[in-house]
Every structure is written in structure tokens, then in C-alpha cells.
């Protein structure tokens, strides 16, 4: 998945400035930068979550393989099946654990027969199966915060997307749940391209292959994790990762 010379405006405000970036398959890319630098906005452009904001305007090209995401002919439903998203706060639907996953499958008209099997597989991949296998009929909101977030990841995974976008998935969780999710991200990497927004430098170091540093709507530096955290080229990046500002 890639963006090419992409600009995004909210009304007259120029939020993202001339961003070009390319996410490789089976890699975890972290987007880092101080609050308000546009990293979440960038992330949300990759599955067209800005479509509902009437004053958002996007220029440039965003592609998933050869598919132009913002081409009028592209099916939104299809795009969102191929690009899954996990949000900052766990947002399970007001349904049971099982229905949270089957809902996604039903929208995309998966054959009814395959659904239980697909759900089991997704829950296993999300390290949640052992904890919930006996209570799939329980309301999802009764799970703990960390479990809810893993359920949300399972809900994204169950559709077999190509890319999973994660918007600070651990910021509302305790350290133990955070570790579990990080472990999960590393295991999902073998099947998916993962782009994650994070505020946590240690987390970025633990899980990413590549790191993109953004500042005031611009992509300052994008490189391998070791390069960014060891000897970044730009002074701004060095200052940020060393905690001089943020």
C-alpha cells in the first residue's frame, strides 16, 4: 500500500502536506510524531474513514496494489474488506462476542456454513479463543478492555484483509494487555501488512520494522527502525526519539 504526493485539507486547513510513503508486505510500520502532527489523519485516509467528514478534501494518489482507493469506481465496501482498522478505544458492537465477528462476515456475504470455523480461526489468531470459547454468547461489552481490543483485532482479522491499520490500539490499556497486543501484532505480521500509530517510543522500538516520523503534517523521515532510533539523518527526528520534545 502506498501514498503518492498526497495532500489532505479540512476546509481551508492544510493537514497533510505532500506525503509519499510505501508500506511493504509483512512488515510493521509505526507512525510516530507529536500530537496533532497528522499521523492518525494519515492512517484514516488509507481506508477512507474521512468520507464522512464533509469538509475533508484529499489530493494525490493512494493505492493498494494496483487499486486506486479514491477512484470513484472503487467499491468502498471492498476497500474496507481489504484494509481493516483497529481504533484507539476498543469499540465492540452492542452484540455478543460471536455476533461481533459474524456481523462482519455477513455484510460481505460469506457462506453461512463457513462462519463458525472462520470465527474460531480469527479468535485463535488473536489469542482470545481460550479465554472466550465457552462464552461466545456473552455480550462483548462484558469483556475486559484488553480482551475487547483483541476482539476488535479479531474482527478485523476475520475478514482476511491485506492491511491492518491500528490507531494507538494500546493507549487505553494496562501494561499487561499492551504486551499481549504487541505479541499479537508481531505474530500477525507474517500474514498482514500492519500500519500502527503509536505515541509510545518503546512500543515502536519493540514491534516495528520501519518507522515514519511525522511533524506538522509532513513526513520528516521514513526508514528502518534501527536507523531511526540509532542514527536518524534529520536532527528533528533525533530530538524527538530521544525525548527532547514531544
Amino acid at each position: 500500500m502506498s501514498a503518492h504526493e498526497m495532500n489532505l485539507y479540512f476546509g481551508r486547513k492544510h493537514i497533510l502536506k505532500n506525503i509519499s510513503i510505501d508500506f511493504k508486505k509483512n512488515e510493521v510500520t509505526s507512525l510516530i510524531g507529536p500530537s496533532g502532527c497528522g499521523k492518525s489523519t494519515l492512517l484514516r485516509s488509507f481506508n477512507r474513514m474521512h468520507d464522512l467528514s464533509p469538509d475533508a478534501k484529499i489530493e494525490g494518489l493512494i493505492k493498494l496494489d494496483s487499486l486506486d482507493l479514491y477512484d470513484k469506481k472503487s467499491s468502498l465496501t471492498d476497500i474496507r474488506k481489504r484494509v481493516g482498522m483497529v481504533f484507539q478505544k476498543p469499540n465492540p458492537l452492542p452484540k455478543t462476542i460471536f455476533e461481533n465477528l459474524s456481523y462482519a462476515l455477513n455484510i460481505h456475504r460469506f457462506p453461512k456454513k463457513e462462519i463458525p470455523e472462520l470465527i474460531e480461526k480469527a479468535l485463535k489468531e488473536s489469542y482470545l479463543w481460550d479465554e472466550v470459547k465457552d462464552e461466545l454468547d456473552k455480550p462483548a461489552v462484558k469483556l475486559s478492555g484488553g480482551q475487547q481490543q483483541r476482539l476488535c483485532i479479531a474482527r478485523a482479522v476475520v475478514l482476511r484483509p491485506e492491511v491492518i491499520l491500528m490507531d494507538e490500539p494500546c493507549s487505553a490499556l494496562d501494561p499487561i494487555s499492551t504486551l499481549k497486543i504487541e505479541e499479537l501484532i508481531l505474530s500477525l505480521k507474517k500474514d498482514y501488512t500492519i500500519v500502527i500509530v503509536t505515541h509510545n517510543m518503546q512500543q515502536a522500538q519493540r514491534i516495528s520494522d520501519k518507522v515514519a516520523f511525522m511533524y506538522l503534517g509532513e513526513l520528516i523521515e521514513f526508514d528502518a527502525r534501527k536507523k531511526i532510533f540509532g542514527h536518524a539523518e534529520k536532527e528533528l527526528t533525533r530530538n524527538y526519539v530521544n525525548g527532547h520534545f514531544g
Partner: protein
Amino acid sequence: MIKKIRYLGNWVLLVGSTILVCLFLGIILFDIVSKGLPALSWGFITKFPQKGMTQGGILPAIIGTTLLTFITTIFSVPFGVACAVYLNEYAKPSLLANIIRASIRNLAGIPSIIYGLFGLALFVQALRLGTSVLSAGLTLGLLSLPYVITTTEEALKRVPNGMREATLALGATQFETIRDVVLRRASPGILTGIILTLSRAAGETAPILFTGVAFYINSVTVSLNQEFMALPYHLYMLATQHQSIEQVRPLAYATALVLILLVFILNSIAFFIRYKQRAQDEYGRN
């Protein structure tokens, strides 16, 4: 010292006002219950009025009010909820949407007698529905619409945005999101609003006065083009229009008691739903 006195004064003022309000409410309720209860019996709610309404019960008025409320519901709920969904989920913030919203708020403030006259002009005369339970139900439906719209919109606003994003990000269309998640999550709030609105509408007299309520009917026909008896009008009539008012006074009190009980039951249901929802909200807050 002066501070202390002022503090005490404020306290007395606030608590005094509260007690005063409760006192009035208590007096009214006590008056109605004490004078209505002796006349209230199983026969009272299952029998027709007899001997020029000096004896018997109020069955036709109960049936009439029930049927009327039913028609009001059918008319006001689907349109009201649909309108609220449009305003809250689809309409972009614009001058037009704001004008619509302001108009609806204003409609809620129009005196009910005006709805009655409007219903007479539109349903009874222009649409030739005659004075009937249908005309009256439609008129009450109009009266209820602004309340249904406003309370539904409030309930929709309380649905966290993350919930909408969750389904949209799965590839659901906006319509699917609203149908499967937003409405489901908002349903306790919507239901509460509807019940409170209906309990208010059931007690209205002015809007049905010209549109279909009858002084007395001696048969129960559940047909839409017939006139009907209704509890609030029956009460009004027993209390002011009857030739031997003193004699029917106990019946009037008992009618008032039945009406209050009906409204009380509806409100308790609404209260219960709201209580359940609050518990659920606290569990799954996000």
C-alpha cells in the same frame, strides 16, 4: 456570623421550595386517591356507563383511549424516528437542517388546542375522515411528532461515534450501520422517549375535542371511522357538563385515578428502561 445566617437562609429557601412543591403534589394525589378509590372496582373498569352515567363503569373510555394511543403510536413513531435519523445521521450541518430543527422545537411549544383545530381543518374536513378515532389519532400523532423526534435525536447523539466507525470500518454501508448498530444501541433511549410522549398524548383533551371524541357511545366497535369515548374527555364531562354533578363526583374521581394510574404505569416502564440502560452504559462505556 452573617455568612452563616445567609447560608442558613439559602438552605431554608431551597428546601422550603422543594417541600412546597411536593406538598401540592401530595395533596392532589391524596385528594384523588381518597375520593376515587371507594368508587373504583372491577366493575368500574369492565362495565358500560349506566343510567345517564350515574352508575356503571368506563369501559368504552378505556377502550377508546387505548385505540387512540395505538393510532397515535403507529403514526408518530415511524415518521418521528425516521426524521430524527435523517437529522442526526445524514443531514450535513447546514442552515436548512438548523431551520428544520428549530421548527420542530417550536412545534413542541404550540398549545394543544391549536393542534385540535388544525386536525379539524385537515383530517376531519379537508381529508374527509370525519370526526373519528382515526382523525383524533392522527391529530395526536402530529402533536407527538416533535417530542418523538427530539427525544430520538438525543438518544442517537448518545451513541458513541466509535460505534459507527467500528461498523463502517468493517465495510458496512451507512444505512447498515444505522440499522444494525446505532438504532439498536439507542433503542432504550428512543423507547423511553416514545413512552413518555404517549403517556402525555393519552391525557390530552383539546386535540380530540373537535376531531372525534364523543360524549357517550353505547357499543364497542373497534372501527376507525367511528367516534369514541376517551378518559380525559369523560372526566372533563363528568366534572363540568353532567346534569347532576354532585352525584357523579365519585365516578369522576375514580376516572381521574384510572387515568393517573395509566400514565403512572407508562412512566414507570420508561423509568425502568432508562434505569436498565444506565447500568448497561456504565458497563460498556466507550
